[in-house]
């Protein structure tokens, strides 16, 4: 009654103790899986926010590409190009995001320490926009380099299965983790430079060949957007799956705790009845015993 437990000593019910221990271990393990999932969910939600932001930025770039074909913007192509460059820098900033110090899109290279820049790279961020030697096809010389890897990071979501929780660079930005950004650079080059490699002025309009390229770049960026939305959707599915597993584990733990309680906790009502019954028996025994002790022949020999 006082302890609230019906198993005070392991000798009381060895078989039940084995079951209680196993149940406790299962409950504890499930709680650990819930912790794993809880931590992963926060990370996945952060990834979701960043992907939303990146998708919006790519949408903005695609809109700028559309704007470039509009009559009113014919003389503003370098300005539009500059806007694209700024947005690209923001995209790279998003791609270098971390969650509690853990880089989100660089595979298993999750810390800056693990990335060693090699010239012309200048920093340890996983994504970097660098200015390389200009070429005929890349008159700006801009290239985006990815210094991470595309390995999976898994967590244990229950005793039998794992879940990949990271979204890789190639899943968002295509081949090499930079293809989408390279498409943006192509667009930038088209709007900023003429086909001979010289900078475009506000009087240099897009020729027929340029318009054909613009059309192709728009299509590429649209394809990239679809890929990003797909990655975001996969990330959302992971969130849903993990939340479902959490609910399932919560239900399982409620059931396990009930079974455990039945095995080890006191049935207070039954124990109170037993206590009253045993107390009655004790009182009765004491009364009978006291009468037995009084009986002796010597008492009658006075």
């Amino acid at each position: 009654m006082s302890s609230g437990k019906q198993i005070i000593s392991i000798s009381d019910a060895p078989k039940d103790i084995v079951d209680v221990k196993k149940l406790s271990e299962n409950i504890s393990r499930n709680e650990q899986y819930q912790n794993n999932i809880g931590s992963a969910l926060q990370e996945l939600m952060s990834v979701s926010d960043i992907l939303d932001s990146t998708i919006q930025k790519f949408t903005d770039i695609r809109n700028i590409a559309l704007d470039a074909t509009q009559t009113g913007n014919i003389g503003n192509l370098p300005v539009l190009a500059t806007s694209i460059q700024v947005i690209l820098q923001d995209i790279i900033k998003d791609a270098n995001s971390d969650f509690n110090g853990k880089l989100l899109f660089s595979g298993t290279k999750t810390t800056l320490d693990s990335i060693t820049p090699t010239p012309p790279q200048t920093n340890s961020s996983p994504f970097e926009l660098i200015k390389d030697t200009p070429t005929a096809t890349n008159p700006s010389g801009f290239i985006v380099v990815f210094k991470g890897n595309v390995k999976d990071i898994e967590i244990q979501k229950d005793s039998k299965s794992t879940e990949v929780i990271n979204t890789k660079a190639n899943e968002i930005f295509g081949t090499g983790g930079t293809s989408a950004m390279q498409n943006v650079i192509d667009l930038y080059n088209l709007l900023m430079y003429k086909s001979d490699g010289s900078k475009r002025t506000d009087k240099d309009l897009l020729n027929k060949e340029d318009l054909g390229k613009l059309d192709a770049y728009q299509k590429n960026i649209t394809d990239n957007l679809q890929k990003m939305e797909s990655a975001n959707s996969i990330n959302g599915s992971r969130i849903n799956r993990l939340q479902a597993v959490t609910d399932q584990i919560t239900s399982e733990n409620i059931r396990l705790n009930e079974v455990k309680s039945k095995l080890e906790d006191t049935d207070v009502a039954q124990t109170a009845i037993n206590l009253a019954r045993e107390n009655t028996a004790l009182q009765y025994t004491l009364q009978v015993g006291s009468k037995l002790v009084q009986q002796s022949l010597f008492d009658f020999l006075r």
Partner: protein
Amino acid sequence: MSSFSSLEISKRALAAQRLGLDVTGNNIANVNTPNYSRRQVNFSETDPQLLNGKGFLGTGAIVDNLRSFREELFDREIRNNLSRQNGYSYDEKITNNLESILNEPSDAGLNEIVTKFFNSFHDLSNNPQNISLRNNVIEQAKTLVDRFHSTAQLLDDARSQILSDINQNVGKINSLLKDVADLNSKIASAKVVTDSDVQSFIDKREEKLEELAKVAGINVTKSDAGTVNVFINGINVVTNFVYSPLKTQTDINPATGESTIQLLNTDSNGNTLNYIRPTSGEIASQLKHYNVTLDDKDSSGNFSVYTKLNEFADAIVKKVNSLTTTGYGLDDTTPPGRNFFEPAVGNATAHTIEISASILNNPRNIPLSDAPNEPGNNVIALKIANLATDGTFIDNQTPSDFYSNFVGKVGSMGSEAINGSNATKTVGDQLSNQRESVIGVNLDEEAVNLIKYQKAFEASSRIVSTMNEILQTIVNLGK
């Protein structure tokens, strides 16, 4: 036949009834004396006298003998039961101690600590680059190692205590064997001396035999001279007036280093004679627990708590090391083959398990990645965390199942001891009651005897008084 004959009859009657009163008084005085067997006065008629061919006339009564109600059947069964009961009681004491050492049942036992250790790898697998989580793994490992060490130390202490108990019991056995041999001598001597109270020596000897039976299961045989021979598992330790003292001997297995305590009897010069292996009694339980249950190197194949604990520690060391040696720490560029636990070579025990110094001093060195320079790589971390559910971890069981079954076995051992102790106590009470009803003093019966002998004494006195008056009358006839 003269008037003096009647006086003679009365004198014998007075003496006989007075002895009856003495015996009854002695019975009443010993009503609460353990192992006292009540005495009964048996009267017999003295030889009659021939009355001038007219027949025989009785000459009164004398005390023929004092009967004792000692029953060997009960004594033997009670001794056997005492041996079993005390063996179970010691088993119960040891399992209670083990429960306390293992801190079970509780939510802070070794099992929970092992679970927390593996769970810390789960936490770390979410963020393998996180130094504070790496430190947490080391702290959990420290707790685990400390618990193994403290449990091993407590088991050592318990084993030492048993050794002390064994030595005390050997001393007690020797003292009791000597007492039994001495009492044999007194009984044999008393048998040939008239009026000696042999029965009180027999009662005392039985008391000693029962004390002896509590410590070691014995067999007792009786000789015609009233002496007893005592055997422990077939080895004769008391032969009439001579006893064979016991001593302990520590045997070391050179191959395994396993130390076992053996019990031997010796001759009068202290030379060892035979190994004695009591099958019941407190010392049998003590030898079992010292040589098996709490022996860290036990090779008997029976259930040893210490051996199982060592196996558990060894499995943790080997399984975790087998994974960490394939992994990379945060700063490793080449495979370091780093062990998490020591000793890396040979078998670890609950005493020797330690955290490797390279890991203890630098959490960055915990190998969690299966490739260099990948701080987010948690492949090894997950594998270590999943050892908690590895069905081949130890004896084809998960760590938790192994430990739960291990605790269950300790519980079964305790349960068996408690049940045995309760059962033998009940049987013991029944046997004692049955024996008491035969050999014990019944105050009602003694009260009746008291009245009977008192009245008989008064009546005999009355005869003397009457004869005195008759003789007075006869003497006065001549005046």
